[in-house]
């Protein structure tokens, strides 16, 4: 026995890789949304995923978070947790958080309540019925409110926030879950320049502690945060490398028609 062997159920990323996707295929009515895709995400890295519409970016996130079960292939979280055997809440509990493309905060709840629901704690029924925030959890929420710049909106209904603020609230909810892997789908869509810059800083500050996978169309934004970029095309990985390498790759240029 190795002394540092993780307990069962805990993520074993001792080999440096936290997320393994191998030969994953998904088809919808004959259309191959993912085609024999293999992808590895390292512990603590910030990875950007780009690709034209229909390349399979969102399907990929659906597979990792348990929304879609692949036809073939394997998906492991660390070396021991088989994600294909878990459903959405179990995967969330294991430590994979997701921000959706369309901001999907709970509009009828306040900003504070949104964060409270996301808070990493016992999420089974009876403890939830009796749950009261303790001092530490309140501090946690306050910290996240500060990070996402919504401290003065804590009592406001989430539905009344601006589009950019909703995006930030979603990121805040993701932070409250304390995930080991954050999947962030189009975080800067609809944001102003200033907001985009702050988002970039935030995501950069998270890497190391957590692995962050960002899907985004905004190339300028990708350039400002990316170390490694993976390009998806027609459901598989076209190429992988630094932003410069990727942008000078003739195949990528062809796929994007000169972008």
């Amino acid at each position: 026995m190795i002394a540092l062997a993780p307990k069962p159920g805990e993520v074993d990323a001792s080999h440096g890789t936290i997320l393994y996707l191998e030969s994953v295929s998904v088809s919808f009515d004959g259309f191959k949304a993912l085609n024999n895709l293999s992808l590895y995400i390292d512990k603590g890295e910030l990875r950007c995923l780009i690709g034209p519409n229909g390349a399979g970016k969102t399907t990929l996130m659906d597979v990792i978070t348990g929304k879609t079960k692949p036809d073939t292939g394997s998906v492991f979280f660390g070396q021991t947790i088989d994600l294909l055997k878990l459903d959405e809440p179990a995967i969330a509990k294991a430590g994979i958080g997701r921000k959706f493309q369309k901001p999907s905060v709970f509009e009828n709840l306040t900003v504070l309540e949104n964060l409270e629901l996301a808070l990493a704690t016992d999420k089974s029924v009876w403890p939830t019925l009796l749950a009261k925030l303790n001092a530490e959890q309140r501090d946690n929420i306050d910290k996240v409110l500060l990070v996402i710049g919504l401290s003065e909106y804590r009592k406001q209904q989430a539905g009344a926030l601006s589009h950019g603020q909703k995006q930030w609230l979603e990121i805040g909810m993701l932070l409250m879950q304390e995930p080991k892997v954050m999947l962030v789908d189009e975080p800067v869509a609809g944001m102003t320049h200033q907001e985009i810059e702050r988002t970039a800083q935030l995501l950069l500050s998270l890497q190391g502690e957590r692995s962050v996978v960002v899907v985004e169309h905004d190339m300028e934004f990708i350039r400002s945060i990316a170390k490694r970029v993976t390009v998806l095309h027609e459901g598989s990985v076209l190429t992988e490398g630094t932003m410069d390498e990727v942008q000078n790759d003739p195949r990528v240029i062809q796929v994007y028609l000169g972008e």
Partner: protein
Amino acid sequence: MKSHWLMKDKPAFWLMTAIVLTVTLLPLANLVFPASSPLHITAYSISLIGKYLCYALLGLSLDLVWGYCGILALGQSAFFALGGYAMGMYLMRQIGNRGVYGNSLLPDFMVFLNWQELPWYWHGFDQFWFALLMIVFVPGILAFVFGWLAFRSRVTGVYLSIITQALTYALMLAFFRNEMGFGGNNGLTDFKDLLGFNVQADGMRAALLIASGVSVIAAFLASRWVIRSKLGRVVTAIRDQEARVRFIGYRVELFKLWIFVFSAMLAGIAGALYVPQVGIINPSEFSPLNSLEVVIWVAIGGRGTLLGAIVGAILVNYAKTLLTGWLPEVWLFFLGAAFILVTVLLPDGLLGLWQRLPSQKTKAGAV
């Protein structure tokens, strides 16, 4: 300190006060003043108002699942009827040998069917405590089994609504059958005693009215507590963004199941209070139409408010009593029209209208 929120929540305060006054003053007026006095309230009125309060509790139970969790359950009357049958079975066993056939063990309808023995599921109903348990457990267990299957398979929206209608329809057909042992289409009736007191007596009617009022208030306070807990916020979140709730780690199906079972139990209590006040329970209580009416009460009162369900149930049923007395054939058209008008013009129901009054707006400092 406990009454603090109640003083601030004016509509809740006034409604609770109104219910308390109703269930104390009306029985007094019935018992103290002689029938000749203009202040006398008839026993019929007492039972009628008790009935409205049972409907209020039924409406409240539906509001929990529909208004807060977004499950348009169209079978709420099934739980109401099951609670009613559980109470009816107790009342039948209380008749003893005073039935037409004078059989001390078997209810009349069983003697009529030539049954020799009491069916196993009728045992225990001679005990009031056992009947009380069954009043909440039978609806609760049905809701648990049904909800477990439906929510786990992620049946939602209109499909779920249709199955709940099918559920209550199937139960109605089953209870119509004599072989089921629940009195067939006649149901259970000719009740004599409840806890040793005559169910027809004025004092008993007053007691049942008070019990109904207390139940509505207790259920309202309990529901309010649930809705204001973190579980209540999870349930509201499920209504608005079901998939999202799963991705932050909640087992959506278990939360739906919890609120569904809780709601079914409240509906069962409502049915149990209803039966001794109307004096009969028969399979027509399972009619799919009854469940649809409950939805209309809640919509008219204002869904997702708890209070709206209580107000809606009482007002609509009062209107029903009046209209079916004057113009019986008009009632269903009136109900349909009221539902359409409220849906189109007052999506938040009557309670929403009250909250939008100018005086309320300035108080709340709304934008």
